[in-house]
């Protein structure tokens, strides 16, 4: 940086402890107007905590924040917002049963302005920044991309000029991500400051002006995006070594068919469309990926196969035994391990500790007569923590305190420990940093030798890196199944996912 305009926000010595954990340690950082900042760092590095401090949700234990030269202390999000700092959280802060307009009005309700700057001005903001969304729609009916636009509108309506995004792209489709970045650029050109957290290095290269990297609670690098030559440099800054996310995939040696389904539709007893006429088979020793943009029925399919929701019609053959669809979910199947996309609620219980979470799906393994063998469970958990480098408050800490990536690694380790015949992995690397992603990918590939792996994902790179065959799901139907070795397939998969080509 040669010419330095006055900082709109300056942090010095920001420190935050959660019990024994130091989430942020003496952080200095300054933000300027009209720039887009990318904040990088491994899972648990303290990125969300730092941003929550800026947005007034947490108070720092030490350090000062200066806004346009004046020292400020935010006791609540309200005060940060009044100072022009707004945040879009990982978990959207929208009231689902209310309409878009009501949500925006709710946000404005805290403000001083008496007038109902509703209708006209919201539409005007929407047009100006390319944030089209129907004001009368209920939030619960909106896609993730639309919800995010509502979040941005909420902040703009309050005249925020520092906008913070916590992993905004994790829940978006390719097109929605491109749209979001255009919005970022328009906001920047209007002189606003954007800070976004991401784990995807290509996103940093695509849109950021400035880059900051955190590691274990410290800010370890601040640099201009122009000075970064490649993603390799970034990866090295983040984890101290080069990671380019290229896993070696030896050719598959498929064995017997573990699961075959045909004519599968569901979910039963729901008005949602779900999925229809699904047919595939997956064999021991191979990874079959089902790829699709979020909301095309793969979530329902995963829940149905895992036995969480009932299936409507169709047939399944699992380990040689035949099932009719309605019978499938009646009782749990020996030999299936499931890694759900929702790691906070479906996969784990936040209030209980790591060891107990590790035991959850394998109580039989860890019980001796009527007693649970906690000591053996603790040893197994400790081994998993070691193998996957799970960082957090230790075995006795509640799982809810783990950062997203660390929790995911714990769930993965638990499910692998069950030695499944079929591993059902749904969005296994969503929100994970490169190092964790690499660890998960390697674990899945490793598991391929022993199990059939069904990978349900929205991430094309993940599917291409891991899968032997890729089935594309669109509007609840599998359009085509493509061999992953076929390099010409990539473009076709993209078109299929977008529904621009039929199978």
């Amino acid at each position: 940086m040669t010419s330095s305009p006055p900082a709109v926000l300056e942090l010095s010595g920001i420190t935050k402890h959660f019990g024994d954990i130091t989430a942020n340690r003496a952080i200095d950082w300054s933000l300027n107007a009209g720039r887009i900042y990318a904040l990088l760092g491994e899972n648990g590095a303290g990125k969300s905590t730092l941003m929550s401090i800026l947005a007034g949700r947490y108070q720092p234990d030490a350090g000062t924040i200066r806004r346009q030269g004046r020292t400020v202390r935010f006791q609540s999000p309200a005060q940060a917002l009044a100072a022009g700092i707004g945040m879009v959280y990982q978990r959207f802060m929208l009231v689902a049963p209310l309409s878009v307009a009501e949500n925006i009005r709710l946000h404005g309700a805290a403000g001083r302005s008496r007038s109902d700057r509703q209708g006209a001005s919201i539409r005007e903001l929407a047009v100006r920044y390319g944030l089209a969304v129907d004001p009368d729609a209920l939030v619960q009916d909106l896609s993730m991309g639309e919800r995010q636009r509502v979040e941005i509108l909420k902040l703009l309506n309050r005249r925020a000029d520092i906008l913070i995004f916590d992993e905004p792209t994790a829940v978006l489709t390719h097109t929605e991500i491109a749209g979001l970045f255009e919005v970022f650029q328009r906001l920047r050109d209007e002189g606003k400051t954007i800070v976004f957290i991401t784990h995807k290095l290509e996103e940093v290269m695509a849109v950021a002006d400035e880059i900051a990297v955190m590691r274990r609670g410290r800010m370890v690098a601040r640099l201009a995006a122009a000075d970064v030559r490649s993603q390799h440099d970034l990866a090295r800054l983040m984890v101290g070594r080069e990671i380019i996310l290229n896993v070696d995939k030896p050719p598959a040696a498929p064995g017997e068919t573990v699961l075959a389904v045909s004519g599968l539709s569901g979910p039963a007893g729901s008005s949602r469309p779900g999925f229809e006429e699904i047919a595939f088979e997956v064999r021991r020793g191979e990874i079959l990926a089902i790829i699709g943009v979020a909301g095309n029925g793969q979530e329902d399919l995963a829940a149905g196969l895992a036995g969480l929701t009932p299936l409507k019609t169709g047939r399944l053959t699992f380990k040689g035994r035949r099932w009719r669809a309605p019978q499938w979910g009646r009782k749990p199947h020996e030999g299936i391990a499931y890694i759900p996309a929702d790691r906070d609620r479906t996969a784990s219980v936040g209030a209980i500790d790591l060891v107990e979470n590790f035991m959850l799906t394998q109580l039989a393994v860890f019980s001796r007569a009527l007693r649970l063998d906690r000591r053996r469970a603790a040893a197994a958990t400790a081994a998993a923590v070691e193998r996957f480098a799970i960082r957090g408050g230790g075995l006795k800490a509640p799982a809810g305190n783990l950062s997203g990536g660390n929790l995911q690694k714990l769930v993965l380790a638990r499910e692998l420990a069950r030695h499944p015949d079929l591993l059902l992995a749904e969005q296994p690397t969503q929100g994970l940093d490169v190092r964790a992603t690499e660890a998960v990918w390697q674990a899945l590939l490793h598991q391929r030798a022993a199990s059939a792996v069904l990978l349900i994902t929205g991430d094309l790179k993940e599917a291409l890196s891991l899968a032997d065959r890729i089935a594309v799901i669109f509007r609840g139907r599998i359009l085509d199944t493509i061999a992953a070795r076929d390099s010409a397939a990539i473009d076709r998969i993209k078109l299929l996912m977008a529904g621009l080509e039929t199978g």
Partner: protein
Amino acid sequence: MIEELAFIGQIAVKSSIAVLLATLGEIIAERSGVLNLGVEGMMLTGALAGAAVGVATGNPVAATVAAALAGGLLALVHGFFSISLRVNQVLSGLALTILGLGLTSFLGRPLIGTRPGVRLAPWPIPGLAEIPLIGDIFFRQSVLAYLAYILVPLCWVLLYRTRTGLKIRAAGEDAAAVDAAGINVFRLRYLCTLAGGLGAGLAGAYLSLAYTPGWKESMTGGQGWVAIAMVIFAGWNPLKAVIGAFLFGGLTALQFYFQAIGIELIPAYILRMLPYVLTIAVMVLVNTGGGRRRGASPAALGVAFNREG
């Protein structure tokens, strides 16, 4: 025949007002996400405070205000435990009811048998009271009944047509989102809990100043619980609360009527049970019929809010 109908109708409305006032208050509290099972206790405390201040001053306004404030004060205790300390709301509410029962039965002893200091007699509204049937049923009631009539649409407008109402409804659905919007969830919930207490206190005032003037131990006779049931029956909507309250009042009036004309078809104690039993029956029907109502329940009802948790 018409006369009898007018009489039964008048008693029905008269018997529904306490439940209606308490229900309105509880709707506001629950809409913001605070479940207060202490309605019975707040109502009793309000009734005693109203009766006592009535005896001491003879001033109806002072007695009514004292009753409302007593209910509100108790509600703030619930607020402190459930909002600030994040104690389980069911436990805190139950404790409040038990506290109210014990406290009033102890403090109310000197008042038993004294002449009521204030009687809010029926006050026919000139003009309206002359309308045949309707006038007899609705407009020959006490002032507190008219207050309830006004509060019903006011509560509805508050909840559905104002910014404050939007904040209240949102806080009951998703407190974290409301907090992120820069709204003080704690203050909002305290105020709504207070409103619930004021409503229950007024309901108590109605009982000890208008319905059966004077103090009697446990004079609410479970109407606080009926009010809590009515909140669910009404789907947290103030307008529908009217229907529920009148249903309860109507059944109470029928019971009086049968007793009065001396029909001994059904034993008296079963008749006295009727309003409560039927209230429960209605609740069961409403909640099993398609499960639509349950969807109306505020999603964050009974869930304390904690920013760092």
